[in-house]
């Protein structure tokens, strides 16, 4: 049984951290690497450079089609982390009079840490909480908007819980007040339909590696007319907004991955797997889905197993490749800021696991995972028999403000 602890290849249930690159995407990338391929610099004016530039243009069309947007608005970056930073720093930097940013407590670290850095340089930031279900209330968000608000930044799908945020409602409120809205759609693309035109979003962060594309490439889509400053300087690539030699193979791979990552095609399979795992885990006592199951994206199921230590649980489940919270804080012993904001106790937050699925995940893998969990959790709980209440309680009364984030 290849999924047993200690065996060589664990079952990969960490697609929200990153995904294997699809075969068709690899093929696309290979076409841009060797001497016979479109390896030249897309900014070069010679014939080989123009061939590379055409590939970049084609990728833009594919990416834009997946998000219902105009290809010209795309600025390629090294990923969503950079796109998020560019959106926040760039819009606040270009804004003279308005020095206030609204975001939420459940954003990815690349938004939260960037917001902190902006605070240190004089931007005022309001961090809106989410409910116990992990979802931000559009009314609460609207109340945070001030006359001097320069930007609102809210993620589309939360990377830890998978909860889908009410972007359409938030966007209409931002539009009514003429405040640009930035959406981090890193976890939404390919999982749920994303239509920036219909939603009325002004800036949108994207990344390739969550949808079977390569790591190290992403984009910020910017609606024409939005004022934004570059973060990196040098060269005229991408209208000076983001210089550096364009990585054709990465962009081509992102384009292909976005073309293939169709939520209409892949969503139902993911949703089946998610439901299957939820149903199997419901057989174990005292197991809780973090968030509102019915409002989650199809590829993420975050589950709390109160009464066990999180690290022990993950080690017991080393036959599964899963994350506690997000990969970018994988080595830290702190409880997830998202789960804490939702009101989970530290112990329960630490004892939560994010399971996430991809197009090649099978029902068999889910069943094996459920069996391993059904063995590990009761065993660890027996070992902790007699432990005090704090080891077992799911929720804390405590509220977490932005000060509690790090």
């Amino acid at each position, binding site marked *: 049984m290849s999924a047993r602890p200690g065996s060589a290849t664990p079952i990969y249930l960490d697609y929200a951290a990153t995904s294997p690159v699809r075969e068709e995407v690899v093929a696309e990338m290979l076409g841009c690497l060797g001497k016979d391929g479109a390896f030249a610099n897309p900014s070069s004016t010679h014939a080989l450079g123009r061939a590379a530039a055409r590939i970049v243009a084609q990728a833009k069309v594919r990416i834009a089609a997946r998000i219902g947007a105009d290809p010209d608005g795309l600025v390629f970056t090294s990923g969503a982390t950079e796109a998020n930073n560019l959106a926040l720093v760039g819009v606040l930097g270009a804004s003279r009079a308005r020095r206030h940013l609204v975001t939420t407590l459940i954003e990815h670290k690349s938004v939260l840490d960037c917001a902190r850095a902006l605070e240190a340089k004089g931007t005022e930031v309001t961090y809106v909480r989410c409910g116990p279900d992990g979802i931000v209330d559009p009314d609460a968000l609207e109340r945070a908007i001030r006359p001097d608000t320069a930007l609102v930044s809210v993620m589309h799908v939360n990377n830890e819980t998978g909860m889908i945020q009410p972007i359409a409602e938030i966007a209409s409120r931002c539009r009514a007040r003429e405040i640009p809205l930035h959406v981090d759609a890193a976890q939404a693309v390919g999982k749920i339909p994303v239509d920036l035109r219909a939603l009325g979003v002004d800036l949108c962060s994207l990344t390739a590696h969550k949808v079977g594309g390569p790591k190290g490439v992403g984009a910020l889509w910017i609606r024409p007319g939005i004022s934004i400053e570059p973060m990196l300087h040098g060269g005229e690539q991408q209208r000076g907004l983001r210089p550096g030699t364009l990585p054709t193979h990465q962009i081509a791979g992102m384009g292909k991955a976005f073309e293939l990552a169709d939520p209409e095609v892949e969503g139902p399979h993911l949703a089946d797997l998610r439901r299957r795992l939820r149903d199997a885990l419901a057989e174990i006592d005292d197991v809780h889905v973090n968030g509102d199951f019915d409002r989650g994206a199809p590829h993420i199921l975050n589950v709390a197993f109160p009464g066990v230590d999180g690290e022990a649980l993950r*080690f017991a489940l080393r036959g599964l490749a899963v994350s506690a919270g997000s990969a970018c804080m994988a080595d830290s012993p702190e409880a997830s800021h998202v789960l804490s904001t939702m009101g989970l106790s530290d112990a329960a937050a*630490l004892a939560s696991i994010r399971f996430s699925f991809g197009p090649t995940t099978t029902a068999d893998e889910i069943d094996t995972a459920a069996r391993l969990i059904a063995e590990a959790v009761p065993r660890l709980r027996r070992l902790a028999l007699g*432990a005090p209440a704090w080891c077992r309680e799911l929720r804390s009364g405590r509220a977490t403000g932005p000060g509690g984030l790090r």
Partner: protein
Amino acid sequence: MEYSFDVERRFDSPAGAGNIEAPREGAVAHGEAEDRSLNVWIRFEVQADGGTIREARFRAFGCPHTIAAASWAAEALRGAPVDALRSFDVDAARRALNVPKEKLGKLLRIEDALRACAERLTEAALEPLEG
């Protein structure tokens, strides 16, 4: 986080886990320790026979290293003089099991739990002399 082979083995089948069936009232002493900020709780039970530890068992809510070290301690204490409960050096367990240094904070709770056992044992340890 790195786990040595010994930690892995003891985590998968933790020798010395569980409770002691008390042969008679008072023959078993227990002691607990916890550190909520480190997400760790440990309980030991020891049964003494005169000045000697006949049996030691633990329960733990904690990381694999904590569980492995508690298991190591339970085995090491069996047959040792009761003084060992106070002088137990968890860093020896840490080295024996190849546990990273940064885990020492959690592991020290094992010493606390053993000392708590020793506190209670002073009374209970009288029993065999009587019996």
